[in-house]
C-alpha cells in the first residue's frame, strides 16, 4: 500500500486525541470539586485485566476506582462505526455488556467493589450515532439492556481563548450524581494543564508505528546515546537496547507503568515486539546502528512479515527522513541524503 502522509497524520491525530480523552476522564474522576485539587487516592488503571464471575479475563480500556465502594469501567472508541457496519457496532456494546457483571480486580482487599458504572467514550461527532444505536436498534435486546448505569460520553477539542478538551455526557447517568450532572453540562479542561501534569502518549491500544518511532528516535535514543563513544569503525554510535528496557522507558515517561496492583502498563511490551521496533523476543541486547535500527530496517526491506502495507511504507518513509549524525543524535535530513541512507540500508 502506498504511503499516505495525510492519512498517517490523521491517524496520529486521532490517536493523540484518544490519549487526551483517557487523561481527561481520569483527571475529571480524580478532581475534587470542593478542595479544587487532584485527589490522588482515586485509582486509575489502563489496560487493567479484570476477571468476570465466569473466570473469563476482560481488559477494559480504563478502570477507575473513585471510592472504596464505587468504580467506573470505560471503553474508548474514537470512531463509532458507520451504520453500514452493524456487526462492529454490536461488538462495542457486546464488549460493554461483558463488563456489566461483578468484576474482580479492584484496588480493595477483596478485589471486589460494591458497584461500578460503565462508560463508552467516543468522539462527540460519533456520540449521537452511538446513542441512537443503543436506544433504537438495540432497544429491548440483550446487548442493549444493562443492569449497571451506562453513560455515553463524547469528547472534542475546542478553541476559545485557548485550546480546551471537553467531555460531554450525551446519554445515561453515572453512580455519582454530581459528576454525572457536571458531565451532562460539559466539562472543558484546558489542554495546557493536561500536558503540564503528565506527558501521557499511550493508551491501551497500539499507535501508528511512526508515532512510537518518533518518541524513541527523538527523545529516548539521544538520552541513551549519552556517554557512549562513537564507533569510528562502524561510523555511528551504537546504542545497546532491549525491547524490555525500551518498553519500560516509554511506560515510565510517556505512558503508565506496570505495577504490583495488577496494572499491565501502556505502551505494552508485546505490542512493541509486534511492531518490530527492536526485533529481539529473547530480550538480548542488540546494537542499534546508523539509522533507525538498521537490523530492523533491513528486515523491513527484506521479508518481514509483521510490518506490512501502509505501516511498512510509513516506516520506510520515516527512515528516509531520519538518520543519526556523527554525534549520535537524531537529525532530519534532506530527501537526497535520506535517499542515500536508504540505498545504504537496502
Amino acid at each position, binding site marked *: 500500500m502506498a504511503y499516505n502522509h495525510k492519512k498517517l497524520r490523521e491517524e496520529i491525530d486521532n490517536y493523540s486525541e484518544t490519549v487526551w480523552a483517557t487523561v481527561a476522564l481520569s483527571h475529571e474522576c480524580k478532581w475534587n470539586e470542593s478542595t479544587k485539587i487532584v485527589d490522588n487516592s482515586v485509582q486509575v488503571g489502563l489496560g487493567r485485566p479484570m476477571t468476570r464471575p465466569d473466570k473469563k479475563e476482560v481488559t477494559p480500556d480504563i478502570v477507575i476506582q473513585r471510592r472504596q465502594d464505587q468504580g467506573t469501567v470505560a471503553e474508548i472508541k474514537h470512531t463509532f462505526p458507520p451504520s453500514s457496519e452493524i456487526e462492529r457496532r454490536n461488538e462495542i456494546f457486546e464488549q460493554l455488556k461483558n463488563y456489566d457483571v461483578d468484576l474482580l480486580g479492584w484496588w480493595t482487599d477483596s478485589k471486589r467493589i460494591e458497584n461500578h458504572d460503565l462508560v463508552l467514550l467516543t468522539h462527540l461527532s460519533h456520540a449521537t450515532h452511538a446513542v441512537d444505536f443503543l436506544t433504537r436498534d438495540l432497544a429491548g435486546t440483550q446487548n442493549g439492556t444493562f443492569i449497571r448505569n451506562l453513560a455515553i460520553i463524547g469528547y472534542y477539542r475546542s478553541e476559545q481563548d*485557548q485550546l480546551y478538551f471537553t467531555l460531554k455526557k450525551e446519554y445515561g447517568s453515572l453512580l455519582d450524581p454530581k459528576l454525572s450532572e457536571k458531565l451532562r453540562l460539559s466539562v472543558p479542561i484546558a*489542554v495546557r*494543564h493536561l500536558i*503540564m501534569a503528565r*506527558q501521557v502518549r499511550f493508551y491501551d491500544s497500539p499507535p501508528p508505528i511512526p508515532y512510537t518511532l518518533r518518541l524513541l528516535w*527523538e527523545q529516548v535514543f539521544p538520552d541513551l546515546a549519552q556517554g557512549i563513544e562513537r564507533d569510528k569503525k562502524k561510523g555511528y554510535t551504537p546504542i545497546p537496547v532491549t525491547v524490555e528496557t525500551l518498553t519500560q522507558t516509554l511506560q515510565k515517561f510517556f505512558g503508565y507503568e506496570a505495577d504490583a496492583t495488577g496494572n499491565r502498563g501502556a505502551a505494552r511490551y508485546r505490542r512493541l515486539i509486534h511492531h518490530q521496533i527492536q526485533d529481539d523476543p529473547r530480550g538480548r541486547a542488540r546494537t542499534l546502528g546508523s539509522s533507525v535500527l538498521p537490523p530492523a530496517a533491513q528486515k523491513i526491506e527484506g521479508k518481514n512479515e509483521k510490518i506490512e502495507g501502509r505501516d511498512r511504507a510509513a516506516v520506510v518513509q520515516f527512515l528516509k527522513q531520519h538518520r543519526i549524525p556523527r554525534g*549520535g543524535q*537524531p*537529525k*532530519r535530513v534532506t530527501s537526497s541524503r535520506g535517499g542515500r541512507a536508504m540505498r545504504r540500508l537496502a
Partner: protein
Amino acid sequence: MQDLLDSKSQTELFDKLGHYKCQPPLQIRVVVAGSQEDLGALAEKRSPFPFRVRETSEFSVGQFDYESGDIRLHGSLFFCPSPYKNISYLISVCSAVVWHRSILRLVNSLYPKLVPVFFSQEELFELLKLTKRTFPHSELTIIGHSRKQRLRIGSRRKYETSRTRTEKPLEAVFAEADEQNYWFSSVSVDITRAADDDKQLSHLFTSATLSKYANFFCTSQFDRFLHGTVNKMGEIAEHKMKFFSNRSRRLTRAFEPRPISITYASPEFTSQTDTNNFVSIMRKMSDASCSVLHDNPYIHLSVVDANDGSAADLWVLKNDEILLVPQLRASEAALKRFVNYIFEEWREGSVTSPTSDGIQP
C-alpha cells in the same frame, strides 16, 4: 601582556587589568558564561586549535600560537571564577581578529558544557544604565550599535542587519529601537568626562561595548566595569543558569515535566498565517531537528538539539503563550538556545516557569 601572565592571584590580575589602557586594535574582552566543569581543562581537551592551559591557584590561563591561513594567531585567555556559582569570566586582551577567529571559535566548541548567556533587550538596557551609574560624573553616549530587524516572513533573507555609527543618549537609542521594532546585537558606548581645566571641554575617559551574547569589551577602567557591569552580567547569568537547569524529566520526582512558558503582552498567534510563520521559523533552526506534530489550529513541535540530544516539546495552545516542555534529556544550554532562538527569530517575551498545580482552570 607578560605582566598579566605573571599574575599570582586573581586579585592581582584584575588589579593589573584595572590599570591597563588598551591602544587600538586591542581591547580587554570578556565572555560571561556558565559551566559546571573546570573550563580550563575542558578547553585544553576540546579546543579546535593547539591550546596550552596552565593552572594557578585561583584561575587558569590558556595560551595559543598557531597559523591560520596567512596569519599567525596568538594570545592568552584567562578563565576566572566569578562571585557567582558556576559562572566564569573568560578574559583576554586581544584584537577583534583574534577574538573572532580564535577565542569565539574556542568558546563555541565548548558548547554545551559551556552554557552561553543571552540577554534580552530589557536586560541589555538595564546593564547599560548600570554602566552609566558606575561613572557618576561622566556622560555616557551611544556611539554605535549592531542591530537586527526581522524581514517579511518568506523572504530569502531573514533579517536586515546594520552597523550604525551614531552619537545619541542611551534612552533615545532604546526608545527608537522600541518604536521601529528592531533589536540590538551589541551596543558601543563612549564615557566622557569634563576636563579639569577652566575650558570645561570633555575628554574621552573610556569606551566599552556590550553584546546580547554576554560579551563585554572595554579599553580601560576594567576594575570599575568589573564591579559594576560585568558582575551584574554574572548575576543575571547565574539567575538564568538556575532557571534553566534541572529541567530534565529524569530529575523530577514522578518524571513530570518542568515547562518553560514564554508569554507575550499581546496575542501573537491570531491567524493561521502566524502559525505557519512560526512553524517555518522553528524548522529553520540550525543544529536542531524540528518535527511538526500539529500545526492547525494549535502548534505541537518536537525540537531536538543536534549537539547534545536535548529534546523539548513546543506547544502553542494560547494565542499569547509558547510552552516549552523539556523531555528526558534537557540541558540548560539547549533550553537557553531554544528560548533565545524564539526571542531572536520570533519575538521577545517574558519567561516564567508555570506549575501544573491547580490543573483545572
